[in-house]
């Protein structure tokens, strides 16, 4: 692995860990089951990789995660 690639990957890992914690906190507030929360967090974080013009990515992630959780609950509603 080239030094720059290693740097990108280390940074990405650190970002994943920090943002996972942020979104896990939101998931706990929303009382999402752990397995669902982890899947949705992973989806939201992957989706964020294509967002290049959003200034406050943390706010974007929280909004995206809340929207995903709303959809999950709506789909489970009888």
């Amino acid at each position, binding site marked *: 692995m080239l030094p720059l690639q290693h740097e990108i990957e280390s940074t990405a890992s650190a970002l994943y860990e920090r943002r*996972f914690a942020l979104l896990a906190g939101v998931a706990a507030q929303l009382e999402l089951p752990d397995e669902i929360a982890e899947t949705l967090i992973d989806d939201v974080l*992957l989706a964020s990789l294509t967002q290049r013009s959003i200034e406050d990515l943390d706010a974007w992630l929280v*909004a995206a995660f*809340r929207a995903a959780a709303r959809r999950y609950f709506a789909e489970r509603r009888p």
Partner: protein
Amino acid sequence: MIDRVRLEHFAATARRLEQERAAAAGTVERLLRETPRADWPALAEHAQLQTCGALERLGNLFADTLTKDPVHANAIAELAVAVAEGLAPDSYPAVILAQLRAHAWKDLGKALRFVGRNHDSISAFDTAEQKLDGHGALAHDRAIVRFNLAMSLQELERFNESLKLLVECKHVFRDHGDTRNVVLCGLAEGVLLQRLCRFREARERYLLLLASTRELDHESLAAIHHAIGFCSVELDDDADAEANLLHAISLYRRIAQPIQILNVELGRGRLFIRKGDANAGIAHLRPVRREFLRKGMHEEAGICGLEIVGALLLVGRTSAAEALARKIVREFTLAGLNTRAITALGYLSEAITARNAAPGLVRNVRDYILSLRTKPEREFRATHPTA
């Protein structure tokens, strides 16, 4: 609890996307430059284009080109759709693949709207939205698609559906901290009011947007001032119209948007004529029309030409008006534009030849041609009395 496999997958994807973006910089432009446009569909098979980085690059080129050369932008969007649809299902994480395909279709929908194919554009946006189905995390992407759908619905005069979507999208954009798109929603609401001829309400909406949004980019600011200027022309508020149109031109110049400048200049020409200075309007509009023609925008050139025809009739230069009207008929015919538009223009030419056309008939024909963008099957009826 963090799943290490997911974390490593995320980090590897991040690295891959950065590598692809670096590789795409320059490569995509070179491939497009070196390949005749007619052969672009074959480029979809080119390995260097079959990446997320290349698709993002195509998306950026599309955005840069759309208002300058919609036909060229349409070709870029068609290529991007072909590339995105050709990607293997396991080439990227499902959520990213959905984004890539949805945005490619969304861009194609925008291009189709710009070239007047509004029904096709709605189909493209429907396809874009389908690509996002099942991905709850993509509410923001979905709102971007639906915002564009709302714009096409306006073109088809489906105003209530459009307004409902705009309100919905504005909430999503605000939730996601996307100020630029919040502004674009506000602008679209104003445009909708303009189309309903509610110019005072539209202008108030734009002024509110200026007052309530702190950080506006040049493009949004220019669009708002253009819109305020347009409303002010209709409200006969000359000073306000001139100030806002000039401000819009200055902003569009800074961001190099020549077609938008031409559209604003068309508004200024109309302003001169409405103020009673038809000769100034004619002198102002002639170079604008030439420039539209030079860019192959025959319909816009025709609309601009009709403003000149109306002004020529106002100052009694009937022969010049007749000659120009006939010239516009020839241009529309050569460009293969809607035959109904050509028929209406022919009717106008004959009325001028018979010395039987008032400027009101010119406005009647102009409005009819504009209405064909949304209702291409509509029949022409001369609703304004001839002279």
